[in-house]
């Protein structure tokens, strides 16, 4: 929050599928230290934007800069090695690994990347122990040696979050973190996000307005591929175009 260059800067990002512009010249910044929400009705272009940031899709034009570094066309793994880590909408763990091992997977890239000072964990055993501390943070110690396939879905979600943090990301991308969850599970995820925000900037894509309003410091609203609002949650909530887009979509 101290420096003025944003952690992530999107400039006129555009992506079309067969003549239809899924994302049409979208520009916004994600500032370091914030929880930033990317929202909009169905077909607004949230997922396409998300995919362009994490590298699952490549933008037709425009630019993506992370910490000033141009990453628009970089492959996904390269972005991940630069500190952009994502979670998946459908929980994506290795079912035959234990919870501990799944979280450990997150620290693999940092095992030898000592240069940028992100990794105290040069050695394998240190990384393994660091994971144990992380598991403690996320209340996962008691299931550490259980197979990932055996633990309930909300716990798996926490495992995913812990794994993402094991990668020591500077920017954490959350793809619909509370999709299909009950109210109490949502508040659990909300608490986990509160914990995460101390160490990483978060950009999350989400449908659920209530959740977004309570979790995010800043919101960007897309509708039919265009950016229609960008600002503080309260301002966005009052924005007429946003209300119209949401009511229009629901009517």
């Amino acid at each position: 929050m101290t420096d003025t260059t944003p952690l992530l800067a999107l400039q006129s990002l555009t992506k079309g599928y067969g003549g239809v512009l899924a994302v049409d010249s979208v520009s916004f910044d994600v500032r370091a230290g914030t929880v930033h929400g990317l929202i909009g009705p169905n077909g607004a272009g949230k997922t396409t934007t998300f995919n362009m940031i994490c590298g699952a899709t490549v933008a037709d034009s425009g630019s993506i800069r992370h910490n000033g570094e141009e990453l628009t066309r970089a492959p996904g793994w390269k972005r991940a090695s630069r500190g952009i880590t994502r979670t998946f909408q459908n929980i994506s763990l290795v079912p035959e690994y234990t919870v501990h091992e799944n979280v450990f997977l997150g620290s693999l890239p940092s095992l030898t990347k000592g240069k940028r000072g992100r990794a105290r964990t040069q050695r394998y055993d240190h990384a393994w122990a660091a994971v144990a501390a992380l598991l403690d943070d996320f209340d996962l110690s008691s299931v550490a040696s259980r197979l990932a396939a055996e633990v309930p879905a909300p716990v798996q979600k926490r495992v995913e979050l812990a794994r993402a943090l094991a990668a020591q990301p500077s920017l954490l991308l959350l793809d619909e973190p509370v999709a299909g969850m009950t109210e109490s599970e949502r508040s659990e995820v909300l608490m986990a996000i509160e914990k995460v925000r101390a160490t990483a900037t978060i950009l999350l894509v989400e449908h659920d307005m209530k959740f977004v309003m309570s979790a995010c410091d800043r919101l960007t609203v897309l509708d039919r591929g265009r950016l229609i609002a960008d600002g503080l949650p309260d301002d966005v909530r009052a924005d007429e175009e946003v209300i119209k887009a949401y009511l229009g979509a629901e009517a």
Partner: protein
Amino acid sequence: MTSPAHAAESLTPASSVDYPYAHTSLLPLVGTLAVLALLPAVFLAGDLYMLSVLAGAFLTAAACVGLAIVTGWAKLLSFSQGAIYGVGAYAAGIIATRHDVPMWLIMTVSILAGALTGLVLALPTLRLQGAYFGIATIGIQMLIIGLLVKGGDLTGGPTGIAGLPLPTVWGKELFEPGELYYLTLAWLAVVSLLAGWLWRSRIGWEIRLTGHNSGLADAFGIPVVRRKVIAFMLASGIGAGTGCLHAYVYGVIDPFGFGIQFSAVLLIIVLLGGKHGRVLATMVAAILITLLPEYLRSFADIRLLVYGLVVICLVLFAPGGLSGLWDRAWSLFRGFATNSKGATLK
């Protein structure tokens, strides 16, 4: 002994965490190798036939441990390990029958030739998914054998190459079955310990993660295609090195010995070892499957039939392979141990 506090303690696994994958100990592997090293002294002294059969089994096992890196770890079905084994054998045959070059040097050349072949073949094919990759490797297999058959004077055509020099280590020529037993066992030890060490290393984790879920690997900064290329090169280097040793041990090679049937046998062995390609399980499966026909000699004519049936039954009833069977037995044993503990508490 039966205080409630003690009961609670025994139910929660405290701070001891199982590391079934990460911290797979090398001890069982080292122990197995040690047992194999002692076998000739204890049981097989003088059983020259069995010593030769086992030497062959060790070569197959080494080739399979290599293949397991591609098929078990990276989950890429490869039907071309047999041909790449042949590349190593022919590299040895072509050089050693023409020039007076020490064995270790030819071995090195073979390993590099294999790894290079792996690299050349991997680059265009690794972007293929699942069954398509498997089919591409069948093509590779046939292409290499075709080249060996049509290689004219260089490869000796369909008759292959004969008259390789004896394997020589530190100036000593090895030819007795007992000596060849230890030569092949030494190679298997090198290969399996290397693979066992790789399994635990970062690169091993990364190769296995690309096999489990390539999207996930990509999202965690692992260059998926590069890791698969490395896996393929490792498997090919090990395969070709083993082929080179094969050429020295038998002294004769022909292209058909490295055909699609040989590749299929290697692949079946890896799958019987277990779907994750654990080193020890793959090794044990290779030795058992090679020994099986020897013990089926009393069935004479229907030997191959019985062999085929045994393989089919294993696949049907133990789809997790040897390591799957082991895991099941182990969890049953642990379940039994905890249950009996629980019973004494009441």
